């Protein structure tokens, strides 16, 4: 039964980290004034961060549902397939958010894009926190996949 308990604990942790990622990102908002230009930074200005919030929301909701479903062993195949899909969703959302965040932090000299973290440092810090929480959620789901697969070996005598 310990394998089922590990899976439950991991799903609970996943709910926690996705909720944290969403909360930190949604509350990140900063306004800066640089040379009479008002610089407003919000997560919703970038579609990658909006996708990140939506994906974490879906993953958090699914983690809650699968917490309840995994008590009934008849659903385990469906839960395993959905785990793969949600892991894929989390992985793609964190990569997209990190890619755009990296452009914001370092800029891209080839495209003529200036970094913005110098003007809105608090916004950047909060974003970093949200991305770390999202990364933890993705890692938890990868470990969950391995655990589910390992529990299949118990079928063999």
């Amino acid at each position, binding site marked *: 039964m310990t394998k089922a308990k590990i899976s439950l604990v991991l799903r609970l942790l996943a709910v926690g980290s996705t909720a944290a990622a969403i909360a930190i990102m949604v509350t990140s908002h900063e306004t800066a004034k640089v040379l009479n230009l008002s610089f407003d930074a919000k997560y919703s200005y970038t579609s*990658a961060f909006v996708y990140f919030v939506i994906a974490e929301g879906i993953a958090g909701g699914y983690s809650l549902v699968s917490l309840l479903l995994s008590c009934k062993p008849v659903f385990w195949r469906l839960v395993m397939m959905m785990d793969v899909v949600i892991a894929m969703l989390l992985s793609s959302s964190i990569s997209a958010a990190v890619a755009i965040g990296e452009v914001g932090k370092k800029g891209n000299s080839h495209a003529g894009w200036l970094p913005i973290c110098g003007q809105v440092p608090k916004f950047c810090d909060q974003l970093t926190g949200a991305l770390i929480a999202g990364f933890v959620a993705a890692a938890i789901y990868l470990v969950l996949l391995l655990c589910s697969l390992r529990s299949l070996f118990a079928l063999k005598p």
Partner: protein
Amino acid sequence: MALDNGAKPEAVHDSTLVSKAPSNQVLLVLRLVAFFATAAATIVMALNKETKTIVVATIGSTPINATLTAKFQDTPAFVFFVIANGMASLHNLLMVVVEIWGHKFDYKGLRLAMIAVLDMMTVALASGGDGAATFMAELGKKGNSHARWNKICDKFGTFCDHGAGAIISSFVGLLLLVLITALSIGRLVKPRPATLSPV
């Protein structure tokens, strides 16, 4: 006893008959198509380069030209995309080879499980590459007025088109990879009484 499904008898004492089961052939075809899709995405993005000479300023009557090059290495997102799709296509190739020739190798009966685990890892990696490249391409196409980032697709149209093609091909490969993973897991969970030998 050995028939878990009356329609397709899998005689597991003869290893060649196992490979002829319909689900194995479907899996093989899917893996081949996924290999071509991810390989095409890797190659198209890796060869994605466009050079353009733009008139930057005009002094008197002589225009000053600047040569700008857009290549995929400029953006870490595209580099990750190329690496992720390269590894995904290598994985698909390896799995195709194992499906055709590797039925004799079995490490403690864990061969199918290792295949399923590797499939899951590849799905996660490929989806990460796709997500990053998609949003970076969207940033290049539309820019971001709030961050004062200009779009680049109006100047480097061919670069953007090739990138879009590579990303679409990679999405096809990713979809197929998800299907393949589902089939691998399905293959895994069907209990095959003849292979369950006391270890």
